[in-house]
Protein backbone atom coordinates (compact mmCIF):
# COMPACT_ATOMS: atom_id res chain seq x y z
CA UNK A 1 0.00 0.00 0.00
CA UNK A 2 1.03 3.58 -0.16
CA UNK A 3 3.09 4.63 2.79
CA UNK A 4 2.21 7.72 4.71
CA UNK A 5 5.64 9.15 4.01
CA UNK A 6 4.51 10.12 0.55
CA UNK A 7 1.59 12.05 1.93
CA UNK A 8 4.07 14.14 3.86
CA UNK A 9 6.13 14.65 0.72
CA UNK A 10 3.00 15.66 -1.10
CA UNK A 11 2.23 18.32 1.50
CA UNK A 12 5.80 19.55 1.47
CA UNK A 13 5.72 19.74 -2.31
CA UNK A 14 2.52 21.76 -2.12
CA UNK A 15 4.31 24.07 0.25
CA UNK A 16 6.87 24.75 -2.48
CA UNK A 17 9.71 22.39 -1.59
CA UNK A 18 11.40 21.26 -4.81
CA UNK A 19 13.17 18.47 -2.92
CA UNK A 20 9.77 16.99 -2.11
CA UNK A 21 8.81 17.06 -5.79
CA UNK A 22 12.03 15.23 -6.50
CA UNK A 23 11.28 12.68 -3.80
CA UNK A 24 7.83 12.07 -5.27
CA UNK A 25 9.37 11.74 -8.70
CA UNK A 26 11.92 9.20 -7.50
CA UNK A 27 9.34 7.21 -5.58
CA UNK A 28 6.94 6.83 -8.49
CA UNK A 29 8.63 7.44 -11.81
CA UNK A 30 9.49 3.84 -12.58
CA UNK A 31 5.96 2.70 -11.82
CA UNK A 32 4.65 5.50 -13.99
CA UNK A 33 6.83 4.47 -16.93
CA UNK A 34 5.71 0.89 -16.55
CA UNK A 35 2.12 1.96 -16.33
CA UNK A 36 2.57 4.12 -19.40
CA UNK A 37 3.90 1.10 -21.27
CA UNK A 38 0.61 -0.68 -20.57
CA UNK A 39 -1.15 2.11 -22.41
CA UNK A 40 1.16 2.79 -25.32
CA UNK A 41 4.42 1.48 -26.75
CA UNK A 42 5.67 4.98 -27.38
CA UNK A 43 8.32 5.39 -24.69
CA UNK A 44 9.28 8.89 -25.81
CA UNK A 45 5.70 10.00 -25.49
CA UNK A 46 5.53 8.49 -22.03
CA UNK A 47 8.68 10.29 -20.99
CA UNK A 48 7.37 13.60 -22.32
CA UNK A 49 4.05 13.16 -20.58
CA UNK A 50 5.70 12.30 -17.26
CA UNK A 51 7.90 15.37 -17.45
CA UNK A 52 4.90 17.53 -18.31
CA UNK A 53 2.96 15.94 -15.51
CA UNK A 54 5.53 16.83 -12.87
CA UNK A 55 5.90 20.33 -14.22
CA UNK A 56 2.14 20.82 -14.10
CA UNK A 57 1.96 19.48 -10.59
CA UNK A 58 4.65 21.93 -9.58
CA UNK A 59 3.02 24.90 -11.27
CA UNK A 60 -0.40 24.10 -9.85
CA UNK A 61 0.89 22.92 -6.51
CA UNK A 62 -1.01 25.55 -4.55
CA UNK A 63 -4.32 24.44 -6.01
CA UNK A 64 -3.73 20.71 -5.66
CA UNK A 65 -5.86 18.73 -3.28
CA UNK A 66 -4.22 16.78 -0.50
CA UNK A 67 -4.01 13.16 -1.36
CA UNK A 68 -3.19 10.14 0.68
CA UNK A 69 -2.63 8.25 -2.56
CA UNK A 70 -0.14 10.20 -4.66
CA UNK A 71 0.50 7.11 -6.78
CA UNK A 72 -3.12 6.83 -7.74
CA UNK A 73 -3.28 10.54 -8.46
CA UNK A 74 -0.20 10.29 -10.67
CA UNK A 75 -1.47 7.22 -12.50
CA UNK A 76 -4.73 8.93 -13.29
CA UNK A 77 -3.03 12.12 -14.43
CA UNK A 78 -0.63 10.20 -16.66
CA UNK A 79 -3.45 8.20 -18.15
CA UNK A 80 -5.36 11.36 -19.01
CA UNK A 81 -2.29 12.88 -20.57
CA UNK A 82 -1.44 9.86 -22.67
CA UNK A 83 -5.02 9.52 -23.69
CA UNK A 84 -5.15 13.10 -24.92
CA UNK A 85 -1.76 12.98 -26.56
CA UNK A 86 -2.38 9.73 -28.28
CA UNK A 87 -6.09 9.83 -28.94
CA UNK A 88 -5.81 9.58 -32.68
CA UNK A 89 -3.30 6.78 -32.66
CA UNK A 90 -3.08 3.42 -31.03
CA UNK A 91 -4.30 4.47 -27.64
CA UNK A 92 -7.89 3.60 -26.98
CA UNK A 93 -9.94 6.74 -26.69
CA UNK A 94 -12.31 7.21 -23.81
CA UNK A 95 -15.36 6.66 -25.96
CA UNK A 96 -13.92 3.43 -27.27
CA UNK A 97 -13.19 2.46 -23.74
CA UNK A 98 -16.75 2.92 -22.70
CA UNK A 99 -17.91 0.92 -25.67
CA UNK A 100 -15.52 -1.87 -24.99
CA UNK A 101 -16.30 -2.01 -21.32
CA UNK A 102 -19.88 -2.82 -22.10
CA UNK A 103 -19.17 -5.36 -24.74
CA UNK A 104 -18.40 -8.92 -23.92
CA UNK A 105 -15.87 -9.54 -26.61
CA UNK A 106 -13.62 -12.47 -26.08
CA UNK A 107 -10.29 -10.89 -26.51
CA UNK A 108 -7.64 -12.97 -24.92
CA UNK A 109 -5.00 -14.29 -27.20
CA UNK A 110 -4.63 -17.95 -27.77
CA UNK A 111 -1.10 -19.19 -27.36
CA UNK A 112 0.06 -22.66 -28.03
CA UNK A 113 2.93 -23.59 -25.86
CA UNK A 114 4.32 -27.01 -25.34
CA UNK A 115 4.17 -28.59 -21.97
CA UNK A 116 6.64 -27.28 -19.47
CA UNK A 117 7.80 -28.62 -16.21
CA UNK A 118 9.89 -26.21 -14.31
CA UNK A 119 8.88 -23.06 -12.50
CA UNK A 120 11.25 -21.04 -14.63
CA UNK A 121 9.38 -22.19 -17.69
CA UNK A 122 6.14 -21.34 -16.01
CA UNK A 123 7.35 -17.83 -15.45
CA UNK A 124 8.68 -17.61 -18.99
CA UNK A 125 5.26 -18.56 -20.20
CA UNK A 126 3.60 -16.01 -17.96
CA UNK A 127 5.93 -13.35 -19.25
CA UNK A 128 5.01 -14.11 -22.83
CA UNK A 129 1.34 -14.35 -22.09
CA UNK A 130 1.32 -11.17 -20.07
CA UNK A 131 2.53 -9.12 -22.99
CA UNK A 132 0.20 -10.75 -25.44
CA UNK A 133 -2.84 -9.73 -23.47
CA UNK A 134 -4.84 -6.86 -24.88
CA UNK A 135 -3.56 -3.58 -23.49
CA UNK A 136 -6.54 -2.95 -21.24
CA UNK A 137 -6.20 -6.35 -19.63
CA UNK A 138 -2.50 -5.72 -19.11
CA UNK A 139 -3.38 -2.42 -17.50
CA UNK A 140 -5.90 -3.94 -15.11
CA UNK A 141 -3.57 -6.82 -14.20
CA UNK A 142 -0.72 -4.39 -13.58
CA UNK A 143 -2.79 -2.14 -11.33
CA UNK A 144 -4.37 -4.97 -9.37
CA UNK A 145 -1.53 -7.49 -9.03
CA UNK A 146 1.42 -5.16 -9.04
CA UNK A 147 0.20 -2.07 -7.25
CA UNK A 148 -2.53 -3.54 -5.10
CA UNK A 149 -5.05 -1.03 -6.36
CA UNK A 150 -8.59 -2.20 -5.64
CA UNK A 151 -11.07 -3.01 -8.38
CA UNK A 152 -13.17 -0.04 -7.33
CA UNK A 153 -10.22 2.27 -7.88
CA UNK A 154 -9.26 0.59 -11.13
CA UNK A 155 -12.80 1.10 -12.37
CA UNK A 156 -12.47 4.78 -11.53
CA UNK A 157 -9.09 5.02 -13.21
CA UNK A 158 -10.12 3.24 -16.38
CA UNK A 159 -13.54 4.89 -16.57
CA UNK A 160 -15.28 1.56 -16.52
CA UNK A 161 -17.87 0.15 -14.22
CA UNK A 162 -16.88 -2.22 -11.49
CA UNK A 163 -18.38 -5.29 -13.09
CA UNK A 164 -16.62 -4.61 -16.38
CA UNK A 165 -13.28 -4.43 -14.64
CA UNK A 166 -13.93 -7.79 -13.03
CA UNK A 167 -14.88 -9.19 -16.42
CA UNK A 168 -11.70 -7.81 -17.88
CA UNK A 169 -9.64 -9.40 -15.13
CA UNK A 170 -11.53 -12.65 -15.47
CA UNK A 171 -10.62 -12.82 -19.13
CA UNK A 172 -7.01 -12.00 -18.37
CA UNK A 173 -6.86 -14.71 -15.71
CA UNK A 174 -8.39 -17.26 -18.03
CA UNK A 175 -5.75 -16.58 -20.63
CA UNK A 176 -2.92 -16.58 -18.13
CA UNK A 177 -3.98 -19.65 -16.16
CA UNK A 178 -4.72 -21.66 -19.28
CA UNK A 179 -1.05 -22.16 -20.03
CA UNK A 180 0.10 -22.17 -16.45
CA UNK A 181 0.85 -25.44 -14.72
CA UNK A 182 -0.11 -25.42 -11.07
CA UNK A 183 2.71 -26.41 -8.77
CA UNK A 184 1.19 -29.43 -7.17
CA UNK A 185 -1.97 -30.76 -8.61
CA UNK A 186 -4.50 -32.01 -6.22
CA UNK A 187 -6.30 -35.19 -7.04
Amino acid at each position, binding site marked *: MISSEHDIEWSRMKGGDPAA*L*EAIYRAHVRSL*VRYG*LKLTHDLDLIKDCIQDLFLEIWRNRENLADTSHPKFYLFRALRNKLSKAHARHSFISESELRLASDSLLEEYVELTITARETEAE*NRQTLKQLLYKLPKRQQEAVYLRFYHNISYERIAELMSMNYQSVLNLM*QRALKALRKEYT*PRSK*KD
Partner: protein
Amino acid sequence: MSIYVRKRTLPYIDIAIPMDQQEEKIHALLLDNRFVDWVMNPQSPYAGYWLEWAARDAEHAWLLEEAKHFLLEMRLAEEEGQQDISDVQLEQMLDHIREEITPVRKKKSPAKYWYMAAAVVTGIIALTTFLLSTGENTITGAAGKKADHTADVIRYNGNKEDELLFLPDGSKVVLAKGARISYNLLMNGSKREVTLSGEAFFDVAKNPEQPFYIYTENVVVKVLGTSFKVTASGNQESVAVKTGKVSVYLKGQDLEVSAAKIVLPQQVCRYSGLNKELITETFTDKLPIAAGLEKVSSYSFEDAPLDSVIKTLEKMYAIPIQYNADTFAGCFITISLGDESLEEILKVITRTVDASYSFSGYGITLKGKGCR
Protein backbone atom coordinates in the same frame (compact mmCIF):
# COMPACT_ATOMS: atom_id res chain seq x y z
CA MET B 1 -20.96 -16.17 -23.50
CA SER B 2 -20.99 -16.06 -19.79
CA ILE B 3 -18.32 -14.94 -17.47
CA TYR B 4 -18.11 -16.31 -14.05
CA VAL B 5 -17.40 -13.65 -11.50
CA ARG B 6 -17.44 -14.00 -7.80
CA LYS B 7 -17.70 -10.70 -6.13
CA ARG B 8 -17.16 -9.94 -2.48
CA THR B 9 -18.60 -13.21 -1.31
CA LEU B 10 -16.51 -15.72 0.47
CA PRO B 11 -14.93 -18.32 -1.68
CA TYR B 12 -16.01 -21.87 -1.06
CA ILE B 13 -16.69 -24.17 1.76
CA ASP B 14 -17.15 -27.47 -0.02
CA ILE B 15 -14.48 -30.13 -0.42
CA ALA B 16 -13.38 -32.64 -3.05
CA ILE B 17 -13.89 -30.62 -6.15
CA PRO B 18 -13.03 -31.43 -9.73
CA MET B 19 -10.25 -29.64 -11.55
CA ASP B 20 -12.24 -26.98 -13.37
CA GLN B 21 -13.95 -26.04 -10.14
CA GLN B 22 -10.61 -25.82 -8.48
CA GLU B 23 -9.57 -23.42 -11.20
CA GLU B 24 -12.67 -21.36 -10.62
CA LYS B 25 -11.88 -21.13 -6.96
CA ILE B 26 -8.39 -19.89 -7.69
CA HIS B 27 -9.90 -17.30 -10.01
CA ALA B 28 -12.29 -16.26 -7.27
CA LEU B 29 -9.41 -15.74 -4.88
CA LEU B 30 -7.42 -13.76 -7.39
CA LEU B 31 -10.45 -11.60 -8.09
CA ASP B 32 -10.91 -10.84 -4.43
CA ASN B 33 -9.46 -7.50 -3.35
CA ARG B 34 -8.92 -8.84 0.14
CA PHE B 35 -6.87 -11.77 -1.06
CA VAL B 36 -4.53 -9.67 -3.19
CA ASP B 37 -4.15 -7.17 -0.39
CA TRP B 38 -3.20 -9.94 1.99
CA VAL B 39 -0.49 -11.23 -0.34
CA MET B 40 0.93 -7.83 -1.13
CA ASN B 41 0.44 -5.71 1.92
CA PRO B 42 2.41 -6.72 5.01
CA GLN B 43 -0.03 -4.75 7.15
CA SER B 44 -3.10 -6.17 5.51
CA PRO B 45 -6.18 -6.05 7.74
CA TYR B 46 -7.31 -9.29 6.07
CA ALA B 47 -4.41 -11.42 7.27
CA GLY B 48 -6.36 -12.87 10.16
CA TYR B 49 -9.32 -13.57 7.95
CA TRP B 50 -7.33 -15.58 5.40
CA LEU B 51 -5.36 -17.51 7.96
CA GLU B 52 -8.58 -18.52 9.60
CA TRP B 53 -10.07 -19.39 6.23
CA ALA B 54 -7.08 -21.58 5.39
CA ALA B 55 -7.17 -23.28 8.76
CA ARG B 56 -10.75 -24.30 8.19
CA ASP B 57 -9.88 -27.00 5.69
CA ALA B 58 -6.98 -28.52 3.81
CA GLU B 59 -8.52 -27.69 0.46
CA HIS B 60 -8.63 -24.03 1.43
CA ALA B 61 -5.01 -24.05 2.48
CA TRP B 62 -3.98 -25.54 -0.84
CA LEU B 63 -6.09 -23.10 -2.85
CA LEU B 64 -4.65 -20.19 -0.92
CA GLU B 65 -1.09 -21.39 -1.47
CA GLU B 66 -1.68 -21.98 -5.15
CA ALA B 67 -3.31 -18.61 -5.75
CA LYS B 68 -0.63 -16.87 -3.74
CA HIS B 69 2.11 -18.61 -5.67
CA PHE B 70 0.53 -17.67 -8.96
CA LEU B 71 0.21 -14.05 -7.90
CA LEU B 72 3.86 -13.88 -6.86
CA GLU B 73 4.90 -15.53 -10.12
CA MET B 74 2.86 -12.95 -11.98
CA ARG B 75 4.67 -10.17 -10.20
CA LEU B 76 8.03 -11.65 -11.07
CA ALA B 77 6.97 -12.10 -14.67
CA GLU B 78 5.87 -8.48 -14.74
CA GLU B 79 9.17 -7.32 -13.30
CA GLU B 80 11.35 -9.44 -15.54
CA GLY B 81 9.36 -9.02 -18.68
CA GLN B 82 9.00 -5.29 -18.69
CA GLN B 83 10.86 -3.32 -21.27
CA ASP B 84 12.86 -1.18 -18.96
CA ILE B 85 14.07 2.34 -18.78
CA SER B 86 17.54 3.09 -17.49
CA ASP B 87 18.30 5.08 -14.36
CA VAL B 88 20.21 7.45 -16.58
CA GLN B 89 17.11 8.19 -18.63
CA LEU B 90 15.08 8.73 -15.48
CA GLU B 91 17.70 11.13 -14.16
CA GLN B 92 17.71 12.99 -17.46
CA MET B 93 13.97 13.46 -17.20
CA LEU B 94 14.44 14.77 -13.68
CA ASP B 95 17.13 17.13 -14.98
CA HIS B 96 14.65 18.56 -17.45
CA ILE B 97 12.05 19.00 -14.75
CA ARG B 98 14.60 20.67 -12.49
CA GLU B 99 15.68 23.02 -15.26
CA GLU B 100 12.10 24.06 -15.87
CA ILE B 101 11.23 24.72 -12.26
CA THR B 102 14.43 26.55 -11.39
CA PRO B 103 13.83 30.30 -11.78
CA VAL B 104 17.26 31.16 -13.21
CA ARG B 105 18.23 29.08 -16.16
CA LYS B 106 21.80 28.67 -17.14
CA LYS B 107 22.98 27.73 -20.57
CA LYS B 108 25.41 24.93 -20.74
CA SER B 109 28.82 26.09 -21.82
CA PRO B 110 29.74 24.63 -25.19
CA ALA B 111 33.04 23.25 -24.02
CA LYS B 112 33.58 21.49 -20.77
CA TYR B 113 36.53 19.87 -19.23
CA TRP B 114 37.61 16.65 -17.81
CA TYR B 115 40.63 16.65 -15.71
CA MET B 116 42.98 14.09 -14.45
CA ALA B 117 45.67 14.98 -12.03
CA ALA B 118 47.95 13.13 -9.74
CA ALA B 119 50.12 13.77 -6.81
CA VAL B 120 52.89 11.33 -6.05
CA VAL B 121 50.58 9.06 -4.12
CA THR B 122 47.33 9.76 -5.89
CA GLY B 123 46.25 10.62 -9.35
CA ILE B 124 43.78 13.37 -9.92
CA ILE B 125 41.42 13.09 -12.81
CA ALA B 126 38.64 15.31 -13.91
CA LEU B 127 36.33 14.46 -16.70
CA THR B 128 33.60 16.32 -18.37
CA THR B 129 31.25 15.13 -20.97
CA PHE B 130 29.30 17.55 -22.98
CA LEU B 131 26.48 15.11 -23.20
CA LEU B 132 24.62 14.41 -20.03
CA SER B 133 23.99 10.82 -20.82
CA THR B 134 26.54 8.20 -20.08
CA GLY B 135 25.02 5.57 -22.28
CA GLU B 136 25.28 3.12 -19.46
CA ASN B 137 23.02 0.72 -21.22
CA THR B 138 24.67 1.05 -24.57
CA ILE B 139 28.07 -0.13 -23.50
CA THR B 140 29.14 -2.68 -26.03
CA GLY B 141 32.23 -4.55 -26.96
CA ALA B 142 35.26 -5.37 -24.97
CA ALA B 143 36.25 -1.88 -23.93
CA GLY B 144 32.84 -1.23 -22.58
CA LYS B 145 32.34 -4.48 -20.82
CA LYS B 146 31.81 -3.99 -17.16
CA ALA B 147 31.91 -6.58 -14.46
CA ASP B 148 28.60 -7.72 -13.05
CA HIS B 149 27.80 -5.61 -10.07
CA THR B 150 26.03 -6.62 -6.96
CA ALA B 151 24.91 -3.15 -6.00
CA ASP B 152 25.59 0.08 -7.79
CA VAL B 153 25.73 3.39 -6.07
CA ILE B 154 24.59 6.34 -8.10
CA ARG B 155 25.56 9.72 -6.80
CA TYR B 156 24.24 12.86 -8.31
CA ASN B 157 25.08 16.46 -7.56
CA GLY B 158 21.81 18.36 -7.48
CA ASN B 159 23.38 21.33 -5.72
CA LYS B 160 24.43 24.57 -7.28
CA GLU B 161 28.04 24.12 -6.28
CA ASP B 162 30.65 21.51 -6.95
CA GLU B 163 30.49 18.67 -4.50
CA LEU B 164 33.30 16.57 -3.10
CA LEU B 165 32.62 12.86 -2.86
CA PHE B 166 34.67 10.02 -1.44
CA LEU B 167 34.88 6.72 -3.25
CA PRO B 168 35.32 3.49 -1.28
CA ASP B 169 38.77 2.86 -2.80
CA GLY B 170 40.12 6.09 -1.28
CA SER B 171 39.71 8.14 -4.44
CA LYS B 172 38.00 11.50 -4.35
CA VAL B 173 35.74 13.09 -6.88
CA VAL B 174 34.56 16.63 -7.30
CA LEU B 175 31.21 16.43 -9.03
CA ALA B 176 30.09 19.56 -10.85
CA LYS B 177 26.46 20.62 -10.70
CA GLY B 178 24.28 18.13 -12.50
CA ALA B 179 27.03 15.54 -12.82
CA ARG B 180 26.40 11.93 -11.95
CA ILE B 181 28.68 9.06 -11.16
CA SER B 182 27.93 5.44 -10.53
CA TYR B 183 30.10 2.66 -9.24
CA ASN B 184 29.98 -0.62 -7.43
CA LEU B 185 29.09 -0.20 -3.77
CA LEU B 186 32.40 -1.56 -2.53
CA MET B 187 34.58 -1.07 -5.60
CA ASN B 188 36.29 -4.31 -4.73
CA GLY B 189 36.35 -6.05 -8.11
CA SER B 190 39.46 -6.69 -10.17
CA LYS B 191 39.03 -3.24 -11.69
CA ARG B 192 37.76 -0.04 -10.21
CA GLU B 193 35.11 1.21 -12.55
CA VAL B 194 33.01 4.32 -12.54
CA THR B 195 30.51 5.59 -15.03
CA LEU B 196 30.36 9.31 -15.40
CA SER B 197 28.13 11.87 -16.95
CA GLY B 198 28.64 15.58 -16.57
CA GLU B 199 31.72 17.24 -15.26
CA ALA B 200 33.88 15.75 -12.60
CA PHE B 201 37.34 15.89 -11.14
CA PHE B 202 38.94 12.71 -9.88
CA ASP B 203 41.68 12.19 -7.39
CA VAL B 204 42.43 8.53 -7.94
CA ALA B 205 44.06 6.55 -5.19
CA LYS B 206 47.08 4.62 -6.35
CA ASN B 207 46.51 0.92 -6.69
CA PRO B 208 48.24 -0.82 -9.61
CA GLU B 209 46.52 -4.11 -8.78
CA GLN B 210 43.13 -2.58 -9.42
CA PRO B 211 43.26 -0.29 -12.45
CA PHE B 212 40.83 2.58 -12.47
CA TYR B 213 38.48 2.99 -15.44
CA ILE B 214 36.14 5.81 -16.25
CA TYR B 215 33.33 5.12 -18.67
CA THR B 216 31.48 7.86 -20.47
CA GLU B 217 29.14 7.95 -23.40
CA ASN B 218 31.80 7.42 -26.03
CA VAL B 219 35.11 6.77 -24.42
CA VAL B 220 36.83 4.72 -21.77
CA VAL B 221 39.66 6.28 -19.78
CA LYS B 222 42.17 4.00 -18.15
CA VAL B 223 44.29 5.50 -15.44
CA LEU B 224 47.79 4.19 -15.94
CA GLY B 225 50.32 5.62 -13.57
CA THR B 226 50.39 7.54 -10.40
CA SER B 227 51.59 10.90 -11.53
CA PHE B 228 49.38 12.36 -14.11
CA LYS B 229 46.97 15.13 -14.65
CA VAL B 230 44.43 15.02 -17.39
CA THR B 231 42.01 17.48 -18.77
CA ALA B 232 39.36 16.64 -21.22
CA SER B 233 37.68 19.32 -23.21
CA GLY B 234 35.91 19.75 -26.45
CA ASN B 235 32.79 19.69 -28.40
CA GLN B 236 31.68 16.31 -27.20
CA GLU B 237 34.08 14.59 -24.88
CA SER B 238 37.77 14.87 -24.34
CA VAL B 239 40.54 14.21 -21.90
CA ALA B 240 43.54 16.45 -21.34
CA VAL B 241 46.61 15.57 -19.36
CA LYS B 242 48.65 17.93 -17.25
CA THR B 243 51.14 15.58 -15.73
CA GLY B 244 51.55 11.85 -16.00
CA LYS B 245 49.56 9.86 -18.52
CA VAL B 246 46.29 8.06 -19.15
CA SER B 247 44.93 5.88 -21.93
CA VAL B 248 41.81 6.81 -23.79
CA TYR B 249 39.82 4.27 -25.76
CA LEU B 250 36.74 4.46 -27.86
CA LYS B 251 33.88 2.46 -26.45
CA GLY B 252 33.87 -0.98 -27.97
CA GLN B 253 37.61 -1.24 -28.39
CA ASP B 254 39.36 -4.15 -26.80
CA LEU B 255 41.37 -2.68 -23.95
CA GLU B 256 44.05 -5.35 -24.08
CA VAL B 257 44.59 -5.52 -27.79
CA SER B 258 43.85 -2.28 -29.53
CA ALA B 259 46.01 0.78 -29.47
CA ALA B 260 44.76 3.37 -27.06
CA LYS B 261 45.56 7.02 -27.26
CA ILE B 262 48.18 7.60 -24.65
CA VAL B 263 47.62 11.13 -23.50
CA LEU B 264 50.68 12.96 -22.21
CA PRO B 265 51.17 16.23 -20.32
CA GLN B 266 49.87 19.32 -22.06
CA GLN B 267 47.96 17.16 -24.49
CA VAL B 268 44.24 16.93 -24.95
CA CYS B 269 42.52 13.94 -26.49
CA ARG B 270 39.29 14.91 -28.12
CA TYR B 271 36.46 12.66 -29.20
CA SER B 272 35.05 13.54 -32.56
CA GLY B 273 31.49 12.36 -32.87
CA LEU B 274 31.53 13.01 -36.59
CA ASN B 275 34.29 10.57 -37.42
CA LYS B 276 34.10 8.56 -34.23
CA GLU B 277 37.77 9.02 -33.58
CA LEU B 278 40.12 10.43 -30.98
CA ILE B 279 42.26 13.41 -31.89
CA THR B 280 45.19 14.56 -29.78
CA GLU B 281 46.25 18.20 -29.49
CA THR B 282 48.10 20.38 -27.02
CA PHE B 283 46.32 22.54 -24.43
CA THR B 284 47.22 25.20 -21.88
CA ASP B 285 43.98 26.00 -19.99
CA LYS B 286 43.60 25.94 -16.24
CA LEU B 287 41.30 23.59 -14.38
CA PRO B 288 38.91 25.57 -12.19
CA ILE B 289 37.04 22.53 -10.93
CA ALA B 290 40.20 21.23 -9.30
CA ALA B 291 39.69 23.84 -6.59
CA GLY B 292 36.86 21.72 -5.23
CA LEU B 293 39.37 19.22 -4.01
CA GLU B 294 41.28 21.70 -1.93
CA LYS B 295 38.34 22.68 0.25
CA VAL B 296 38.01 19.58 2.38
CA SER B 297 40.11 16.56 1.77
CA SER B 298 39.61 14.77 5.07
CA TYR B 299 37.62 14.78 8.28
CA SER B 300 39.50 14.57 11.56
CA PHE B 301 38.04 13.25 14.78
CA GLU B 302 39.70 13.48 18.16
CA ASP B 303 38.43 11.27 20.91
CA ALA B 304 35.02 11.40 19.26
CA PRO B 305 32.11 9.02 19.92
CA LEU B 306 32.20 6.14 17.45
CA ASP B 307 28.63 6.97 16.54
CA SER B 308 29.56 10.34 15.04
CA VAL B 309 32.45 8.79 13.09
CA ILE B 310 30.12 6.15 11.65
CA LYS B 311 27.52 8.73 10.69
CA THR B 312 30.19 10.72 8.86
CA LEU B 313 31.42 7.60 7.10
CA GLU B 314 27.91 6.74 5.96
CA LYS B 315 27.54 10.18 4.45
CA MET B 316 30.98 10.30 2.88
CA TYR B 317 30.66 6.99 1.11
CA ALA B 318 26.89 6.86 0.72
CA ILE B 319 26.95 3.42 2.25
CA PRO B 320 24.75 2.12 5.09
CA ILE B 321 26.58 0.86 8.15
CA GLN B 322 24.73 -1.39 10.57
CA TYR B 323 25.82 -1.77 14.14
CA ASN B 324 24.39 -1.78 17.60
CA ALA B 325 24.60 1.82 18.83
CA ASP B 326 24.03 0.81 22.45
CA THR B 327 26.87 -1.72 22.45
CA PHE B 328 29.34 0.77 21.07
CA ALA B 329 28.07 3.74 23.08
CA GLY B 330 31.21 3.82 25.24
CA CYS B 331 33.64 3.85 22.31
CA PHE B 332 35.69 6.93 21.51
CA ILE B 333 38.12 7.18 18.67
CA THR B 334 40.69 9.49 17.11
CA ILE B 335 40.80 9.10 13.37
CA SER B 336 41.14 10.98 10.12
CA LEU B 337 38.72 10.01 7.36
CA GLY B 338 39.18 10.60 3.68
CA ASP B 339 42.74 9.76 2.79
CA GLU B 340 42.58 6.00 3.09
CA SER B 341 40.30 3.54 1.40
CA LEU B 342 37.08 2.69 3.18
CA GLU B 343 38.46 -0.73 3.95
CA GLU B 344 41.59 0.73 5.59
CA ILE B 345 39.42 3.03 7.67
CA LEU B 346 37.27 0.11 8.79
CA LYS B 347 40.38 -1.82 9.75
CA VAL B 348 41.58 1.05 11.92
CA ILE B 349 38.19 1.44 13.56
CA THR B 350 37.66 -2.24 14.25
CA ARG B 351 41.20 -2.59 15.63
CA THR B 352 40.65 0.36 17.92
CA VAL B 353 37.30 -0.74 19.34
CA ASP B 354 38.00 -4.47 19.10
CA ALA B 355 35.25 -5.24 16.63
CA SER B 356 34.89 -6.91 13.25
CA TYR B 357 33.28 -5.77 10.04
CA SER B 358 31.72 -7.49 7.08
CA PHE B 359 30.51 -6.37 3.68
CA SER B 360 27.34 -7.31 1.95
CA GLY B 361 25.54 -6.05 -1.09
CA TYR B 362 23.60 -3.75 1.19
CA GLY B 363 26.43 -2.21 3.11
CA ILE B 364 28.66 -2.80 6.07
CA THR B 365 27.97 -4.52 9.37
CA LEU B 366 30.05 -3.89 12.48
CA LYS B 367 30.08 -6.42 15.28
CA GLY B 368 31.78 -6.33 18.64
CA LYS B 369 31.38 -6.23 22.37
CA GLY B 370 31.75 -2.51 22.87
CA CYS B 371 34.26 -0.61 24.97
CA ARG B 372 32.90 -0.69 28.50
